[in-house]
């Protein structure tokens, strides 16, 4: 039997002097551990992968296998989470694969300017994710409270005749939904603006589809924030305050992180 051909998966790039501990870390291909390739003052965290599984064709097939993809994505993120021990880390997209270490060194050389620029901007900073989730029932109750006109119509509808009441109720439902949406949007904007002030960078991501997030309620804000590590606790406290303030209207403000700064590798002016 011939040995399967191997490739080299790159996870991220850190400063050349940095050495996060790779102990116990599995690569996206669990047969291999994580290693470092250093060239010209920059270090790429890499691991070997079997090309019969991670080659272009096989990879395309595997990425559509949810179990396979989940394992690979979690392994990728585990390496990135460990790399947060470094001063700065530039995350690469999942499964960026080269034929060998010589090609990784070539890439470091070729992308040197971009990498150094990103490392400079990301030093001492991590990414945090803040989401606002809306519970429709709580929001509609808040909308009723917020708008006296709606509350009055609501009371009127109760006493109307069955025929009138049907249309009145439909109209009221629509008005309530509109008011609820407006309330949620205003709250999401308020949350984002407040967090943007507390962060070194902010980016709005598309809300996650409820089927994918596995969460009930609709996501009205999916924000990524680049935060100084020394200010992470203050940032979390602000998120806590915002959550308390909006909880009564059926909104939950949630924090997750720290993440490697996936969403902040390109300079702000290049972001949409």
């Amino acid at each position, binding site marked *: 039997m011939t040995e399967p051909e191997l490739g080299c998966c790159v996870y991220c790039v850190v400063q050349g002097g940095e050495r996060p501990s790779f102990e116990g870390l599995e690569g996206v291909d669990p047969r291999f551990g994580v290693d470092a390739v250093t060239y010209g003052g920059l270090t790429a965290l890499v691991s070997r992968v079997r090309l019969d599984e991670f080659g272009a064709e096989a990879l395309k097939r595997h990425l559509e296998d949810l179990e396979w993809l989940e394992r690979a994505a979690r392994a*990728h993120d585990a390496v990135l989470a460990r790399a947060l021990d470094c001063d700065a880390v530039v995350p*690469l997209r999942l499964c960026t694969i080269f034929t060998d270490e010589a090609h990784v060194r070539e890439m470091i050389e070729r992308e040197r300017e971009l990498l150094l620029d990103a490392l400079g901007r990301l030093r001492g900073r991590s990414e945090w994710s803040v989401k606002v989730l809306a519970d429709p029932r709580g929001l509609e109750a808040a909308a009723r409270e917020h708008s006296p006109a709606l509350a009055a119509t609501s009371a009127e509808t109760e006493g109307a005749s069955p025929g009138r009441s049907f249309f009145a109720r439909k109209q009221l439902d629509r008005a309530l939904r509109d008011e609820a949406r407006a309330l949620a949007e205003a709250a999401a904007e308020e949350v984002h603006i407040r967090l943007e002030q507390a962060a070194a960078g902010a980016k709005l991501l598309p809300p996650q*589809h409820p089927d994918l997030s596995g969460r009930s309620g609709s996501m009205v804000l999916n924000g990524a924030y680049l935060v100084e590590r020394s200010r992470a606790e203050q940032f979390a406290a602000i998120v806590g305050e915002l959550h308390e303030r909006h909880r009564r209207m059926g909104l939950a403000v949630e924090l997750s992180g720290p993440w490697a700064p996936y969403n902040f590798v390109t300079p702000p002016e290049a972001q949409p």
Partner: protein
Amino acid sequence: MSAQGERLPTQREVSLVEILDRALGAGVVITGDVTLSLADVDLVYLNLRLLVSSVATVRGELGDDADADGLVLTRAAGAG
């Protein structure tokens, strides 16, 4: 921060979509010699949406959105 790299207790179980949003949807795109182009990754992401939705459909957990995701399939298949 207590331990770096550790998620907050409230979010210890980070959902797959949260990770994919970042590992597939963000991060610097550098073309490897072996790997996918950016367009391929986006295609995969669309297919994934479909896959997860169809699993949900089978379980009967999905309502009116099934048709919308059917459109995603058509687009993804056309692009591939």
